[in-house]
């Protein structure tokens, strides 16, 4: 009797241990990867996360952790966690302007060898440049973006090529001659200035992104254009509080004839303002002279792997899968987010979603990177604070103030 009891007890113990072992094994294999990214409403990111989890054959499960829509708020939430060494972050939906800051602080891992090769394949050069910092690659380009000029074809025969031309045209149109642009004191105003400056042939920092550049002639040209626009009848009276979304809403009411904005406005106009949708034309962002095209600051999301992640290897694989051609196609067709893979701009379905694909590709080819410095956030604050509101810009005076503010931002000393 004793021996039977002993054997059965031993059996139970060993079975329990085996079950325990298999449980442990299962846990090791299935790691949950948290992907922190802005709350994308169409479900394109969720589809990519689900597909990649399934394709991994239970190696990992991707869990979406939504961040706010406003990029400033996204950054604030992320940097607080990253600086505190939060291990729950695995994949980061990283705005193109955060690369240098996150890399310098040691919050994200560099991409090397095989993974780097996969992340590079077939990508457009502008989004690729946005993941580079100090000769290392810090993410895989997922979606990209650039502003175009949107205008009313029923009011204007041909899109204006330069800002001067556009302001002049708008002034002659009377009440409906409004140009929608971003003039609130935030990143959008900085991007607007950087685009104008690049179009004029200048840059905020030198080629090594360390010292202030701001050559006098192009900076003055950019500042004069901003002042002229803001003080003309072509500027909306709420320009100093307008962001991308307010500009879109105002344009959809039909009272404006021009708008500089990102490509998300296209699907929005189709849905919200079907009456004016057939009369919408698009063109390159206006230039400052007829012989050089307008250059705009590139936007978009890159995928980076957190340095504190417990499953870094899986996170790299997952990021490559999310940013693959298949999922970029979904992000473009479902969410209206332009792809970073060059070949997709010739894809029939994508060209149906983005009838402006060729103009967008050309815009991206000439796009400008915002300064790739770890202190970009401070530099951006310095620019938007000095130049807001646009109507008060005095080019000569503000040129000196701008140089002073950016120098202070770069030395990381004093209040901004």
């Amino acid at each position, binding site marked *: 009797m004793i021996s039977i009891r002993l054997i059965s007890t031993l059996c139970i113990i060993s079975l329990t241990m085996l079950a325990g072992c298999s449980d442990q094994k299962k846990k090791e294999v299935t790691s949950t990867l948290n992907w922190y990214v802005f709350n994308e409403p169409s479900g394109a990111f969720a589809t990519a996360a689900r597909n990649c989890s399934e394709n991994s054959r239970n190696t990992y499960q991707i869990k979406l952790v939504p961040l706010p829509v406003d990029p*400033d708020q996204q950054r*604030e939430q992320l*940097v*607080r966690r990253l*600086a505190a060494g939060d291990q729950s972050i695995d994949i980061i939906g990283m705005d193109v302007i955060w690369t240098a*800051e996150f890399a*310098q*602080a*040691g919050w994200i891992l560099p991409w090397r060898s095989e993974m780097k090769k996969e992340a590079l394949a077939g990508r457009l050069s502008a989004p690729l440049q946005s993941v580079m910092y100090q000769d290392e690659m810090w993410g895989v380009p997922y979606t990209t973006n650039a502003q175009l000029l949107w205008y009313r074809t029923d009011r204007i025969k041909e899109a204006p090529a330069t800002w001067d031309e556009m302001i002049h045209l708008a002034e002659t149109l009377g009440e409906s001659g409004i140009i929608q642009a971003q003039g*609130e*004191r*935030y990143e959008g105003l900085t991007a607007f200035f950087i685009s104008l400056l690049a179009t004029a042939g200048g840059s905020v920092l030198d080629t090594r992104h360390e010292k202030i550049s701001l050559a006098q002639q192009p900076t003055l040209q950019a500042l004069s254009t901003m002042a002229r626009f803001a003080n003309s009848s072509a500027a909306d*009276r*709420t*320009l*100093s*509080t307008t962001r991308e979304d307010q500009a879109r809403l*105002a344009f959809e*009411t039909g009272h404006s004839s021009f708008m500089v904005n990102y490509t998300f406005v296209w699907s929005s106009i189709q849905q919200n303002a079907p009456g004016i949708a057939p009369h919408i034309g698009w063109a390159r962002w206006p230039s400052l002279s007829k012989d050089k095209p307008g250059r705009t600051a590139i936007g978009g999301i890159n995928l980076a792997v957190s340095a504190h992640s417990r499953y870094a290897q899986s996170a790299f694989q997952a990021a490559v899968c999310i940013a693959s051609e298949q999922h970029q196609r979904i992000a473009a067709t479902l969410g209206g987010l332009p792809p970073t893979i060059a070949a997709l701009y010739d894809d029939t379905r994508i060209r149906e979603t983005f009838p402006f694909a060729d103009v967008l590709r050309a815009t991206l080819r000439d796009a400008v990177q915002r300064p790739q410095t*770890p*202190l970009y*956030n*401070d530099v951006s*604050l310095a620019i938007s604070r000095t130049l*807001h*509101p646009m109507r008060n810009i005095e080019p000569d005076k503000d040129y000196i103030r701008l140089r002073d503010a950016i120098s202070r931002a770069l030395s*990381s*000393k*004093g*209040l*901004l």
Partner: protein
Amino acid sequence: MPRRNEQPKQRQRRHNEWYQAWLLCAPAVLVLILITAYPILYAIWLSFFQYDLRFPDQRTFIGLDNYISILTSEVWWQAFGNTFILTVSSVTLELMVAFPLALIMYHTVLWRYAVRTATLLPYAITTIIAAFAWKFAFDPTTGFINALSGMEQAWLTQSWSSFLVIILTEIWKTTPFMALMLLAGLTLVPHELIQAARADGANAWQRFMKITLPLAKPAILVAVLFRMLDAFRIFDTVFILTRGAQGTETVSMVGYNTLIVSLNLGLGSAVSVLIFISMLIISALFIWGFNIKTGVDQK
């Protein structure tokens, strides 16, 4: 504490009581030290360093340099001026609106609870929500203020009108708090005194000026002090309405931008310490200047 002229037995008993009292208070004191004193001391300590979370390895002791840099900065003094304007104007106007409200709440016989609830309702609404409601109301295209007034004003694009909207939002939101504090003050006025004055032939104005106001003065001053301290830290209303644009930045926003946005722990902590010192000065001015009786003095 034990007293000298007591019997040894009594002294022993007092000593035990004193000891027990401290033992009972100890957990609360400990928690307070942990959650209040420690962060304050840590912020003071950090304020002497150049310490940026983006460059965690470059932490160096720089003494009072952060303070010098802030106090010589145009940004700080402009924000300080803005905060001062917002604090003084909103608290003064609130006091003027809250007094009649408190009197109405005090004297209402019919529907007393309904009147009090209606008056206190704005205070129950989260500041962020209240600020959004006012932002939408003043929006030139979708808001009702322009539609009702027949104006075509883009309120949040000019400095003066932005200040006006911020002050109005603050008044709407926090007047109930002031009224509640004043109501507490009014209930302290003994009814017999008012009746005696009435029997002596004093009219309503005289009764208010000579009896109610002097007796309610400590409560009024405490209410004003509390609101001043609160208003000086104004953040959420401005953040939602203007984000500090149009020259409406306050000292709390400077702290937020330095600490949370720029991750500059040293400089940001120095800003926080300066705000803390400003509040101490306001409290000291009130307590000594207006001779507010604290609980200890009244004994």
